[in-house]
């Protein structure tokens, strides 16, 4: 594989950049693989990469119905954080944060990791207390957290509404300085390129249409490009998980919901952090191109359509204007939607299943992007060793029967209630 560096950039400039190697190949599916990963999104690509790198398993295929990076890894708002209170989440996402910090070097691909800090605004004394508690929990787990006062925030986001009479006055906030953003497409492409270089076959336009299960063991996968034999299958298909689980007669504690995001026209640098509004559904960061990248909450009804409706966009932006009134002058550039695999406690499922050789990675709700490296790492371990890694041992399917659920948000099994 050609190494990307300033020297290769200069060298290729002499030939008008016409002789770069392809970043990943376009192979025909083989008859048999050791491991098949269904879903060529961030998690699937990362899983294949860590299977090859950490476990030496390179006879791997990634089957992608569309094109790699065309689903949620290309549709999210690119935020990275590990500001969780519960130990299971804190340990898992903090492990991921450490991978993010060196990911560009590891992949030899600039994922534009930008630790610009994520600030959760608080609008009441009670919320400040809750954030102080969360911040303390984070610090006990070795995660950075700073409690900010109103005066600190006036310096950081002076254009926010700090008037005394506004409906939701800003009391302060909780900040994770190492939180931030990364370029989502680059993450998918970086993992794809490295996985490909180690022998993984990335097979696009290949839809899984069925599974060959015999005596409780997986034997192969039926696809739109023929049948492929394998002993292990990892499902990394986010919002489409139920559709595959139905083929395996597996009922899952998951509902598919559409989540929208939007970007404004690009403007000069204004917002230097990721900021979440604490009294409504709105968060925002400014992309390197200058666009305000904004998101909020689910449209609120089951959906497999990768597009949403205007009422939720209006609701989200109403919240946005409450905290950043000057955004009312921005023009909207585009809106889009992605399908979230909403689990019933808001936490992911990374586990073995009742079928030998079938492994499940789903339930990411609206937080899958930041988990891309850590999810890939522990899922690769789960598949390669046929046992869960200690970091995903709590993210099991069994918890919906044992009652040991991880309900960080505490809304109960109704994912559309935000």
């Amino acid at each position: 594989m050609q190494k990307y560096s300033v020297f290769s950039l200069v060298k290729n400039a002499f030939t008008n950049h016409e002789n770069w190697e392809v970043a990943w190949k376009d192979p025909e599916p083989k008859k048999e693989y050791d491991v098949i990963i269904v879903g060529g999104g961030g998690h699937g690509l990362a899983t294949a990469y860590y299977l090859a790198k950490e476990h030496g398993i390179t006879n791997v295929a990634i089957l992608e119905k569309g094109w790699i990076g065309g689903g949620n890894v290309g549709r999210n708002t690119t935020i990275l954080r590990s500001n969780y209170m519960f130990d299971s989440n804190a340990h898992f996402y903090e492990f991921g944060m450490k991978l993010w910090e060196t990911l560009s070097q590891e992949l030899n691909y600039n994922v534009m990791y930008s630790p610009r800090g994520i600030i959760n605004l608080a609008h009441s004394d009670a919320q400040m207390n809750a954030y102080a508690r969360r911040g303390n929990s984070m610090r006990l787990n070795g995660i950075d957290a700073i409690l900010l006062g109103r005066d600190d925030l006036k310096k950081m986001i002076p254009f926010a509404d700090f008037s005394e009479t506004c409906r939701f006055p800003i009391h302060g906030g909780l900040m994770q300085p190492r939180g931030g953003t990364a370029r989502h497409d680059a993450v998918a492409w970086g993992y794809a390129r490295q996985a490909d270089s180690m022998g993984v076959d990335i097979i696009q336009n290949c839809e899984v249409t069925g599974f060959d299960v015999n005596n409780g063991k997986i034997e192969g996968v039926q696809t739109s490009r023929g049948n492929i034999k394998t002993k292990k299958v990892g499902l990394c298909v986010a919002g489409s998980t139920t559709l595959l689980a139905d083929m395996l007669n597996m009922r899952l504690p998951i509902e598919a919901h559409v989540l929208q995001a939007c970007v404004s026209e690009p403007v000069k640098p204004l917002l230097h952090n990721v900021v979440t509004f604490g009294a409504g559904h709105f968060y925002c960061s400014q992309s390197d191109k200058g666009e305000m990248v904004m998101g909020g909450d689910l449209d609120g009804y089951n959906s497999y359509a990768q597009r949403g409706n205007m009422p939720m966009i209006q609701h989200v932006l109403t919240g946005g204007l409450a905290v950043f009134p000057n955004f009312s002058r921005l023009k909207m550039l585009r809106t889009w939607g992605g399908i979230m695999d909403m689990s019933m406690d808001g936490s992911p499922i990374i586990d073995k299943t009742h079928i030998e050789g079938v492994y499940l990675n789903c339930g990411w709700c609206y937080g899958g992007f930041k988990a891309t490296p850590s999810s890939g790492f522990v899922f690769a371990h789960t598949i390669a060793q046929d046992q869960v890694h200690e970091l995903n041992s709590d993210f099991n399917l069994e918890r919906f029967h044992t009652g040991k659920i991880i309900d960080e948000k505490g809304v109960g099994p109704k994912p559309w209630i935000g």
Partner: protein
Amino acid sequence: MLEIKCPYCGKRSQNEFSYGGDASIKRPQLGEEISTEDWDNFVYYRDNPRGKHSELWHHVSGCRQWFKVSRDTATHEIFDTCKMNEDFNV
């Protein structure tokens, strides 16, 4: 914008309604032997089809009645709505 036909009030915009999820879930009968698995299924496990979905909606900013909607989760097309004690025609 969804346009939802409340069986009591007629067609109204989506803004007047809130969602109540899968309409096929049945609470286990009280007074009978109920396994923990039955309870788990009732609380956590839902139908999640891509296509026709039977679901509950609440006309919260209107007549405040709950009712059933048959809707396509892939196209958002609404096939039919009916009262809680009725069945869909379509």
